[in-house]
């Protein structure tokens, strides 16, 4: 018993300061895409090579759909002019799916506006204490492991008044991962019905936001919003734990101003 205490004390505090303070993101991290329009020749190579068709060339400009993006870096590697790069920005969760579709030359402005301005409707009831039921609707397990990571000592989501519950009957928010397989459609609908109102639905990861890499399969319906109303979209494949925290806080309109502690 003594050895347990000794080890715990030796370990010390390991919890992240996010979301109150921004922490260093690794230089290799692949976040939001920027395209250097000075050097881009609009050859469309990125649109052809993108595994989920998240980049489109329309009317002479490039459109990026972040709900489909895997943040895999394939476009960055194959751009003949090296005009594409991934930034370290991972705070991409939005309320309206349309905001995830952005024209490249409007990208910075659009997302900056999004970041500063919170959406109108406030879910006051759920703000202080949020109980989440996770529903896997056919994911690759990557998103599920990241949700699990939220409960580890580093992200410790309970410190934000957020916790995971065992039954949808106790939940305020459904955190849905996966592309909604045919086999899980009924289970997802039943879970939604079993959750009392008021409730929020969060689609997490490229699969839940759009079907991701499994779009166009006979076995996948392709996106949570095909069968449920979705309140928040968290893009990423999978989104890193900080990005999930950002999305969840956005769902309850509780993103703290930076350096508030």
């Amino acid at each position, binding site marked *: 018993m003594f*050895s*347990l205490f000794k*080890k715990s004390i030796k*370990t010390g505090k*390991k919890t992240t300061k996010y979301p109150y303070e921004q922490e260093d993101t*690794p*230089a*290799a991290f*692949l976040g939001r895409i920027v395209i250097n329009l000075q050097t881009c020749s609009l050859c469309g190579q990125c649109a052809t090579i993108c*595994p*989920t068709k998240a980049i489109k060339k329309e009317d002479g400009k490039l459109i990026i759909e972040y709900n489909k993006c*895997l*943040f*895999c*870096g*394939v476009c960055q*590697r194959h751009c003949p002019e090296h005009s594409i790069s*991934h930034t370290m920005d991972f705070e991409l969760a939005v309320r309206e799916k349309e905001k995830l579709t952005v024209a490249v030359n409007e990208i910075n402005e659009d997302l900056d506006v999004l970041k500063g301005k919170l959406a109108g409707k406030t879910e006051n009831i759920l703000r202080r204490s949020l109980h989440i039921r*996770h*529903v*896997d*609707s*056919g*994911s*690759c*397990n*990557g*998103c*599920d*492991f*990241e949700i*699990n*990571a939220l*409960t*580890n*000592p*580093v992200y410790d989501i309970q410190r934000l008044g957020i916790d*995971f519950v*065992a*039954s*949808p009957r106790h939940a305020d928010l459904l955190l849905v991962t*996966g*592309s909604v*397989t*045919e*086999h*899980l459609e009924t*289970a997802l609908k039943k*879970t939604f019905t079993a959750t009392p109102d008021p409730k929020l639905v969060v689609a997490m990861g490229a699969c839940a936001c759009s079907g*991701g*890499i*499994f779009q*166009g*399969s*006979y*076995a*996948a319906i392709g996106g949570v919003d095909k069968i449920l109303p979705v309140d928040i979209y968290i893009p990423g*494949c*999978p989104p*890193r734990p900080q990005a999930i925290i950002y999305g969840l806080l956005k769902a309850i309109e509780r993103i703290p101003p930076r350096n508030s502690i």
Partner: protein
Amino acid sequence: MREVINSLELYRNKLLTLYRNKFGEQIDFEFLMDNQIIVTVPKELLVSACLYTQQTLKAPLVDMIGTDEREIDECYGLYYVFASNDLDLFITISTRVERDNPAFPSVTPAIHAAHWYEREVKDMLGVHPIGHPDPKRLVRHFWSKEVHPLRKDIPKGMKLPRTDKELPFKQVKGEGIFQVPVGPIHAGIIEPGHFRFSVQGEYIINLEAKLFYTHRGIEKLAEEMNFHQALPLVERICGVCSFSHSTSYCQAVEKLAGTEIPDRARYIRTIILELERLYNHLGDVGNICAGTGFTFGISQGSRLKETMMQLNERIAGNRYLRGINVPGGVQLDLDNEISMQIRETLTAVAGDFRELKEILVNNDSFNERLIGTGVLPPEIALKMNVVGPGGRASGSRRDVRKNHPYAAYSNTEFQVPSYTAGDVKSRLLVRIDEIEESFGIISQALAAIPGGKLNSALGPIKPQSYALGYTESPRGENIHWVMAGQGNTIFRYRVRSASYTNWPAVQAAVPGNMVPDFPFINKSFELFYSCLGR
């Protein structure tokens, strides 16, 4: 090296004589890509040829693939893959099933390990195993029995017609016996699956699992993709064994193309594969504690796992080691700075882990729960061909890294831990020992990594040729089988993950235990639904 090749040559000739003496001139032989032998037999000889291969050559059945090759020769193809325990050799028994009579004699009554494979072939291709003891649906839950998604005439995105019939569960009848349904949505943050327990009081008499909820049609989606294009899909078969899957796939493609990958790529793959094993095993040690409510173990295990995943993010730009592999080698280099970071992190994690290990193996109340719980007897493990830590806790010594070396494993020294008790404690100990071995493998590989280029160009690939790729993932052997089509595309892709062979073992280990022990018996195997369902 010369000697090994000679002995393999001798062995091949010996095999040829053995099969010829036994089955006469009705069989065809083909030697492929150094360690594969294809034996083509008529349908009638399938069962005896498979049984002969398994018994005489001591080679367990590791995979079975069905293909729709009607457009080539009006036949379905069946390929039973056996892996020798003594030599680095894979023997495939293949047979043709003609289009008008899609049925074949089932191998399951003779070789138990074939039971799921044959049910899947029936579901996905509509080729029927005659004489299968339990031929009910496996992958299809409610799709009509008239449609078989892997047949070539079914389009990828077709909405399959449904029937209302539910899959029946086995009924256990008797006084005081109840059924407890659990899932598909579980209480924890885990994947979906349905478990039907038949219990008497606290004790489980029978467990039947209804799985494949996460079937996403990956094998079908990959068809007609070119070999590079399929890579992001392959990396998403399973989130946390992403690198093992992509390595298996790349190895299969490299064998098809006859491409040798550069030495530097072999070492980088080894390092990344072991980093993947480390973050998984460290997390799993914590998860086994979770099953017993030992919160100290959970938080320490998950903290160490988090440290490893943050390292992953620094290496690859994502936390699941995606985007490193490419058919022909790797596309991401480990420079001096990142190698230094790997060394520093591992030194810290190793010290930390050893302290945790001491506490875990010496804590009596924790060990009381583990010892003798969820026993998988070695003879059953052998029959089911249970792989990975689950198998090695039940007497198996099979480890793909040793039996069929790939990447740079033949150049590194490591032990394969094996225990015989088959309980949760043994499975925990296998993981703890493997963590130590991984630290060793990574430091050896980092010290010996040669310079040079990262990847080689793929050679030409002949249509309808096929090859195996295999890795020892954190959960056991992953076997990928790729058949090429026209113009460097995939004709048929088959993924057999470790979870696929081990799920039936969970159902065998649980009866006789209490319902509250199920979660951590399950955790001790740590199987996934995503790579199972594909």
